[in-house]
């Protein structure tokens, strides 16, 4: 293990968040078994008091979970200089076999934590805890992913050895290797461009349509999810090439570096915010007929849609900037 402050912070925060999730899941199990809002029993009143505390603490834990994804990438990028062969976060993540699984689990837990926070926010806006069982059931379902992330991340961070020779991103994101990444890189640029711009524009337009008419929420929500995956593939396939102005450099991590004005951070943050808010709009929709949420959910959906659409527009603008204004042309 490398005793770097960011590594220690990531490890401790992940352990703390998992500890909190284990306790909250146990509490959530009690909620699912014993919650009865009509009862005035001691147990019920105790659950009502504790849920306020538990959900508040869990909100902060999940809030940090959102930030920790970027702290993780930042740390991986900063540490690359101590590993022979590594040029950016891609090489650091390749130091042992747990790096990339940890990243994938972090992305999954980022999205799930965001959705839980949206559910919790809606529940807290109502006076009668209308989503309490649903949000704790959701927590129980997603808890294994957070716990897996902690285990994998711990194994990755503890397994970091400075004497390991790793691969650089040029080797990892090349067509010379076998696996999913070369497949993505080999995708025809024109096809990917068409897929990227059509889904991104469709998502933005469906967001505007929902804001204007109140209809098509599930289309907007689904497009947000689809856009996320296509955008990630597109960043590897062709967007990154325009930032690097190199026809063969497909690394999705070098853009986090100062040489590229840290453009990776706004690029990914806007994409993730757009995705969470977009999916969240659809997740909330089935609950808008609940009496205490009739005024809350449409307002919240509207705010989420505005946040998602603005983020998606900014994300699109960031990707378009090098495509339109750099001298590099991808034929």
């Amino acid at each position: 293990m490398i005793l770097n402050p960011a590594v220690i912070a990531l490890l401790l925060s992940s352990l703390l968040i998992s500890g909190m999730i284990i306790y909250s899941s146990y509490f959530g199990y009690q909620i699912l078994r014993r919650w009865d809002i009509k009862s005035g029993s001691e147990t019920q009143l105790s659950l009502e008091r504790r849920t306020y505390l538990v959900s508040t603490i869990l909100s902060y834990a999940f809030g940090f979970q959102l930030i920790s994804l970027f702290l993780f990438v930042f740390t991986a990028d900063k540490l690359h200089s101590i590993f022979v062969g590594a040029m950016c976060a891609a090489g650091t993540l390749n130091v042992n076999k747990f790096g990339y699984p940890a990243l994938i689990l972090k992305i999954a837990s980022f999205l799930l934590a965001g959705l839980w926070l949206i559910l919790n926010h809606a529940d807290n806006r109502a006076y009668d805890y209308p989503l309490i069982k649903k949000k704790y059931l959701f927590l129980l379902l997603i808890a294994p992913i957070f716990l897996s992330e902690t285990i994998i991340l711990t194994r990755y961070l503890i397994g970091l050895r400075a004497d390991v020779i790793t691969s650089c991103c040029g080797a990892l994101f090349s067509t010379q290797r076998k696996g999913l990444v070369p497949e993505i890189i080999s995708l025809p640029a024109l096809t990917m461009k068409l897929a990227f711009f059509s889904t991104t524009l469709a998502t933005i337009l469906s967001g505007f349509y929902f804001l204007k008419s109140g209809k098509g929420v599930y289309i907007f929500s689904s497009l947000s999810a689809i856009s996320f995956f296509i955008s990630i593939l597109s960043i590897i396939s062709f967007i990154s090439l325009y930032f690097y102005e190199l026809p063969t450099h497909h690394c999705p991590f070098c853009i986090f570096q100062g040489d590229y004005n840290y453009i990776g951070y706004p690029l990914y943050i806007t994409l993730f915010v757009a995705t969470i808010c977009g999916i969240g709009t659809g997740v909330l929709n089935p609950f808008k007929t609940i009496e205490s949420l009739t005024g809350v959910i449409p307002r919240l959906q509207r705010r989420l849609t505005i946040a998602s659409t603005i983020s998606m527009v900014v994300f699109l603008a960031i990707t378009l900037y090098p495509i339109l204004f750099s001298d590099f042309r991808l034929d």
Partner: protein
Amino acid sequence: MIRLREIRKVFNSGRPSEFTALRGISIDVELKKVTVLKGPSGSGKTTLLSIIGCMARPTSGRIWFEEREITSLPERFLTEIRRKTFGFVFQQFNLIKGISVIENVMLPSYPCGEDIREIRKKALELIQFFNLSGKESSKIEWLSGGEQQRAAIARALINDPSIIIADEPTAHLDTKLSLEFMGFMKMLKEREKTIIIASHDPIVYESDIVDNVLNMRDGIVITGDL
């Protein structure tokens, strides 16, 4: 109607110092009437007042304010109710020393986000109503006991609550000031306020304006209507 059902309050539950302050109280408090909780020290009057006023939660039991159940409300909704539905007059007045009378009276309105000029206007009207005109800029500690009590009532009314809760309001007052206090309560009753007072002062519970006296002892209500 404020309906209380099977209200229990246990302090330090499960510890050697466990104390049961309320033992399953079920009462109805009529709106726009004056109700007095009467009983000796330790009978649970203040605890019950705190629970009715949403300042404390019961260990078990439920309270309905008109049609709405309020004990299950999340804290953010309780805060709203405390600010707008209840006005509190405390035994020790709990006025803030070092600031003026008008600042004390205006204080509960600040979190409501109302225009400061409107709050000031209302505060001045209340100060005038409670015969404190000319003292609005005086530091609160410069006022006499009776004046401080009137300032405390004015403060309780600044958000125009429908229910006034007073905990032993005459405990530190002489007979003249206690009668003056009950006179103010009469005026508030005429303005259709619901008044709930905890007291073991005969000047309070034997007053003509009182509609209902609930005798409390050892955490239970012994008798009902007069």
